[in-house]
């Protein structure tokens, strides 16, 4: 074959890979942990760095893990709804405060309230990456065995909660 054609052939082969890559839209893509145990981690908690929040805390109950940060506008948006969930004792909400700044995060909670049972402070973002976080906010539904059941990306609200989470939780409770 003509050697001048080689680069063209190489690129033509690469294009479908990219198209397939695009179709696996990350906002719709289930987490790689769906159906698998949540990734192992251990983080100091936001409120008290001497305590830790780790994978072990997620066992024994159905819970949510919310990945948030003060720099994320969507997190501010959904915070009110998370407060509502916490007030009504719907489900324990755990959190990973992702790539954030501690005083700022504490200030955020002072102002808007703390809906979390515990919030791990993930300063360098490693744990968030382990969870496969693409961008905050993201919310994971974890079953009593610590298995990731569902992953939701973007700010939560009442309607989305009823639609995406309530049926799944009901299924788990059966």
């Amino acid at each position: 074959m003509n050697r001048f054609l080689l680069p063209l052939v190489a690129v033509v082969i690469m294009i479908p890979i990219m198209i397939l890559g695009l179709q696996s839209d990350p906002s719709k893509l289930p987490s790689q942990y769906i159906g698998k145990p949540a990734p192992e981690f251990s983080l100091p908690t936001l409120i008290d760095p001497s305590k830790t929040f780790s994978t072990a805390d997620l066992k024994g109950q159905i819970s949510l893990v919310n990945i948030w940060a003060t720099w994320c506008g969507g997190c501010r948006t959904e915070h009110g709804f998370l407060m509502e969930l916490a007030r009504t004792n719907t489900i324990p909400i755990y959190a990973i405060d992702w790539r954030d700044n501690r005083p700022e995060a504490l200030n955020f909670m002072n102002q808007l309230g703390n809906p979390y049972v515990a919030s791990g402070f993930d300063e360098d973002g490693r744990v968030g990456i382990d969870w496969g976080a693409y961008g905050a906010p993201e919310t994971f539904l974890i079953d009593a065995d610590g298995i990731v059941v569902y992953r939701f990306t973007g700010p939560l609200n009442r309607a989305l909660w009823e639609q995406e989470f309530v049926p799944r939780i009901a299924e788990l409770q059966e």
Partner: protein
Amino acid sequence: MIPEIGHFALILALALAACQAILPLLGAHRNDTALMSVASYATYGQFLFVAISFVCLTIAFLSDDFSVLYVANHSQLALPTQYKISAVWSAHEGSLLMWILLLAGWTAAVAKFRSDMPDQLVARVIGVLGLLSIGFLLFALLTSNPFDRLIPAALDGGDLNPLLQDPGLAIHPPLLYVGYVGFSVAFAFAIAAMLSGDLDENWARWTRPWTVVAWLFLTMGIALGSWWAYYELGWGGWWFWDPVENASFMPWLMGTALIHSLAVTERRGLFKSWTLLLAISTFSLSLLGTFLVRSGIIVSVHAFATDPTRGFFILAFLAVVVIGALALYAWRAPALDSTAGFNAASRETFLLLNNVLLVVATTLVLLGTLAPLIVEMLNGGKISIGPPWFEVAFLIPMIPLVFLMGFGMHTAWRKQNEGVWFKVLKIPAIAAIVIGVILPLLFYGRVSLMLVVGCTAAVWVVATALIQPYRSWRRKDGTAGITRSALGMSIAHLGMGLFVLGATIVSAFGIESDRAMRIGETLEVADLQFQLRELREVAGPNYTAIEAVVEIRDGAEFIATVRPQKRQYLVQKNWMTEAGIHPTWNKDLFIALGDQLGDGSWSVRIQYKPMIRFLWIGAFVMALGGMVSVSDRRYRKSKK
């Protein structure tokens, strides 16, 4: 009103880009002077309207027009003015507009500084750049209009990400983009050469300065990004092999190969089809970088918001540009191929090796970046390839590259006399080996194979780069001096040597230590004592801060007092870490204040970074070399 003017100006710019693309290309094809003369006017017009559009967006930011969605999402009333300006390019839509502005700016510069280029070549280059402008303007107008309204308007904006509120980060993207976009000029020259079938030494002479200028801006942009990550994020690293970093690094590597290949084409008329392929590849990698960053198909900490529509658009555009260019290449390049051979012991051989190694390095980085995508396709789930892989893979082509660099600089075109080689390179070679072993042993008390290799390579490159300028400086009257072009090359290679030295030493001997510290307590890191003398509250113009006064001593000898701060900005309530850095030419002592721990102590991160400045100094010296070489007289011939 202002946003509508901006939007409308962008549409007019698209119309002018269409004129700029179609008429000159047609004119060049038919040899019609009237049509070709449209080129520069359409270019200036397009640039003017894109600039109007950009100014309108900037005004929207400065006037806090939160009825514009993009402004509402990325600014806030209380944001300081300079960051309202830099917020313009802080996210996808605005940075795309900046890309378009820079593309129009580069094109206008080609039209203005055409040197002694023939009309036909100018018309084709501008026409091809016009085609690229059309693509990007359509991308902006159809999928990413920065002037979209938000109804009802927001009362206040969602604010700029606090990490981006930093002077280093405000100027890093523009520099990077000047470089990225600048490679489109080399691309356009390549397409023009293939369209006309004329590719001679003059073509290479016209293409070179544009390529070098794009390259030197990219060099500075990458270095500045690395420096910012170091001092502001306080992670202690300077390169993370993040996909977005790789996206800027791949065009840099390929562009470096292109600069060297262009030298052969200009001086010897060889490597013609190879140069064309590199020019196409360099710009294609810039486009690929844009695609990767903006489509969200790859996991990265600083990827832009993901949007599949945009991903498809940019992929379609990428496919049209790259497949079009490579199809043209497959069709026209065989006719331009240079069949002449060259002697094995010649500068041509070394530049060929340089090209091969740089292309291998680019391929490795590309594979590492795309591997997660390919693994995912094979249903292996999402993976992330980490720095350890890149560090090993990247060194394989880089070590020989750096050693060959010293030989290449002192090898004659056509045929080298081996005896002269030995005479010139004997001293640098001995110096490199001796210093390469002694330097780490003497100053840092430890030595390993990689250290010797790294230090030897660095000293070797520095020494061989200095020979020519030194001889020119010491020359007797009547002998020829060094040309700007050769001096630029020496300086750029010197920069590379400094960079290698910094990278080697800091990787081997850098220390990062996270500790807890109380007032009065002394910690020992790298045989130095760091004592926390006091903590106090201080007030700045727009912030209050907790300042730690840390005294650094080496035994009895006082070294410095540094004052790391944790600042809270009054208006925005943002906390920012201001590291206390004691920089000297051969090491940085870096202290960042963490959080107050429960028992009254504070967490601190203490870093000892020997020779880290050499990384950025090296990069800027490389860029300086580019500037010097571009100032060579032969690039500034005016049209006869």
